[in-house]
């Protein structure tokens, strides 16, 4: 087998600026006759007006429900006839669009996404339908242990903050979102100054440039947003219990984390991998699952929404042993904060994180998604080449320091849904 080639991923990324001033990252690749495009506008569900949680998600659901001369049915039919995959989504911080097309339908695909973005109809019928669809999902989630635990944790962690609400919407508020709200949020959020674009596939820069201008140049220059205040994680040391008649307790836990641009972020990435991030090898996996058979799944992750930062994890254990799971996790946090990882764990974690980076680049859609994420996080294409070096540079000392910062006094905000034995609210 050949030795791994030292390829520059950054060198494959072309930074395009169109005549109208739209910036995009492009990776040209003609191996498969497809084009994938991801784009986003910073400002998602956190911008939902008071009492109207769900506005951004309804807006996302409505953009492909009729635009220009095409009503909802005609628009969906045009997509289907040309096998174009188009959908929009809203999370807390970003409003995003995702397009995939066969090269032979490229023109039609851009024509339709351009219509959707610039001339959505927001007809009454589809609006009622989309609200109904979101309500159906929210109702289902309202008794789903995993969703309930996420909600309980979110509300306790970020009280009186937009992040306390579900990005999808809240029952009772979704129906308050009217056409006017959509028109307003469309104008407020979908603007050129908060736009990021990533394109991968069988398209050249000149062709793309023309299409991007048609797509984005007509949008407002500036977004109108409500500032989302930076917020810590409340309720450390608290345990929130939500009663549900199920045999298994669903557990969320979390503490403050590090922001994406913190100098210790890479060390934190390595540390989290060792503690609870690397499935099959992490300490939590070994202690909670492998040794004790307490759960099917246990993990931790660094969460970096724009306005907060957390180290967040989850697991689920039968009610009779939920207390045991919680204490094992607490002990592992304490042990890691006190001792940090071993040299061996550090080396293995770095090897994994460095080696597995290549696995993010094996499909067009994954590449487009990653390139968009880097732009959202404020990095340039050079990050693609320096990322592994930064992981490599993390020292044992760095991870010990960051273990104290991350796991520190070991106090978590914990939410438990179920009927755990021997676990009380605190």
């Amino acid at each position, binding site marked *: 087998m050949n030795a791994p080639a030292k390829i520059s991923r950054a060198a494959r990324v072309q930074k395009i600026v169109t005549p109208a001033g739209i910036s995009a990252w492009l990776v040209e690749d003609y191996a498969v006759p497809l084009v994938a495009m991801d784009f986003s506008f910073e400002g998602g569900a956190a911008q939902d007006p008071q009492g109207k949680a769900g506005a951004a998600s309804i807006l996302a659901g409505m953009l492909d429900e009729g635009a220009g001369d095409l009503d909802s049915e005609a628009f969906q039919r045009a997509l*289907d*006839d040309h096998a174009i995959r188009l959908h929009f989504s809203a999370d807390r911080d970003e409003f995003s669009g995702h397009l995939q097309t066969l090269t032979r339908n490229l023109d039609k695909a851009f024509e339709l996404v351009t219509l959707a973005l610039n001339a959505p109809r927001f007809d009454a019928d589809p609006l009622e339908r989309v609200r109904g669809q979101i309500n159906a999902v929210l109702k289902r989630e309202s008794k789903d242990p995993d969703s309930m635990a996420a909600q309980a944790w979110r509300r306790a962690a970020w009280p009186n903050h937009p992040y306390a609400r579900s990005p999808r919407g809240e029952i009772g508020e979704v129906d308050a979102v009217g056409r006017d709200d959509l028109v307003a949020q469309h104008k407020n959020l979908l603007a050129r100054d908060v736009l990021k674009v990533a394109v991968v596939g069988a398209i050249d820069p000149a062709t793309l440039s023309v299409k991007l201008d048609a797509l984005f140049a007509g949008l407002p220059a500036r977004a109108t947003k409500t500032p989302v205040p930076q917020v810590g994680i409340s309720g450390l040391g608290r345990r929130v219990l939500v009663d*549900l008649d*199920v045999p*298994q307790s669903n557990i969320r836990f979390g503490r403050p984390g590090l922001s994406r641009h913190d100098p210790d972020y890479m060390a934190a990435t390595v540390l989290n991998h060792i503690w609870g991030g690397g499935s099959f090898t992490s300490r939590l996996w070994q202690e909670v699952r492998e040794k004790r058979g307490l759960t099917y799944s246990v993990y931790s992750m660094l969460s970096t929404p724009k306005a907060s930062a957390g180290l967040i994890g989850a697991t689920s254990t039968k009610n009779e042993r939920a207390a045991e799971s919680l204490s094992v996790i607490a002990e592992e946090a304490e042990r890691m904060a006190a001792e940090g990882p071993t040299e061996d764990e550090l080396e293995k974690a770095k090897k994994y994180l460095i080696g597995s980076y290549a*696995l993010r680049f094996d499909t067009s859609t994954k590449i487009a998604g990653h390139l968009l994420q880097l732009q959202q996080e404020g990095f340039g294409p050079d990050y693609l080449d320096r990322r592994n070096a930064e992981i490599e540079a993390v020292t044992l000392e760095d991870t010990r320091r960051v273990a104290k910062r991350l796991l520190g006094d070991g106090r978590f905000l914990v939410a438990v849904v179920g009927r755990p034995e021997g676990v009380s609210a605190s």
Partner: protein
Amino acid sequence: MIVSPPPTPCPHEAPAEGQGSADGSHAGPVVNHFKLDNGLEVVVIPDHRAPVVTHMVWYRNGSADDPRGKSGIAHFLEHLMFKGTHKHGPGEFSHLVAELGGQENAFTSYDFTAYFQRIAREHLGVMMEYEADRMTNLTLSDEVLLPERDVVMEERRMRTEADPSAQLDEALNAALFTHHAYGVPIIGWGHEIETLDRHDALAYYRRFYTPENAILVVSGDVEPEEVEKLARETYGKIPARGEPPRRDRPREPEPRAERTVKLADEKVEQPSFERIYLAPSQQTAAPGEAEALEVLSHYLGGGPTSLIYRRLVLERKLAVSAGAYYYASALDDSRFYVYAVPADDVSLETLEAGIDDVLAELFRDGISAEDLNRSVTRLIADSIYAQDSQMALARWFGASLAIGGTVENVLGWSRRVEVVTREDVAAATKWLDRKRAVTGYLLKDEQAA
């Protein structure tokens, strides 16, 4: 639109497009296929866009091969396959994969069990070495087996015991398959999982984990010659065991009675409707019939332009979502699903009547030439999208071969879909007979609430 998932994980998998596609604009994947002397089948699908490979081993046994009273053993063994061999201790393989920057997992279905790693191409040889090792050298002690059985019980609690819709699905399948093991959940029934022991696991392992019963699929940045060489040096060293194991499957009798299954639970805030028809699979269908059923399921219920969505969601507003899908990929007679989520204040009885109206329309009018063309185009396009992912390609070839398909069969899929006629689709509607179906209602238990 808001995409809400169907009530069960959608199993539709369009096979990859073959060489020489519909419009001749693009050749499909180039696939190499050969057998080692010990009977192990090998499929290689080169894709040189990224320096990574997907390495998969498929075994032609799944939950439907579990011995009676030992439900869950295929899945439990899948977990136990990570517990080490004579040569390599528990978890050693996993730690190696991680250290080399790879990702791994395994999955069990009704008809097969598969293991895979995704990793930088230069590590393919060592993956093969370890995977070949655990094909024959697994060791099991109660010390590792018992906690893992608890893990599987937690998995069942997570997936089923806390979720009324998953419980309804189990009941629907159990009612649909009165004799065949597709009626038993893949993970097994809880009371049987609890009793599975070391002897069960090893007996099952010895029966099914043989080179004759396995398929190696490698996709990604490789050449067939190097894969063949590596395969001979690793898997090729495993002695042949003779005949592949027999899959002893009783055939489902011809269904005669329509059945309805209702599950009411206080945790149900959103009712839903589901109906499953017993239908032939790509393996049991007459030539062209499975392809006609694929077209039918797309026309009837594939997304927001489908007949059922237009009638129930857009026009009559009885449902907030509705659709259909067909599970072609199965060794034995399989399933065709129709599902819907009712709009507020619409009863499931009203919704069901609406669905039956749509089906009556389908039976009466069949599919127009234009709609046929649209569905065929869409299905073939999906197979081109699949070529973007080495993992997706590896899965399709692996799954298809594991149920007795051939590489030629997979490659010819789009050509077979292209020649489906209106008459074929009309004929395929015969399977949507309520006598062949189980209807499920998921309801709120108002009294308990």
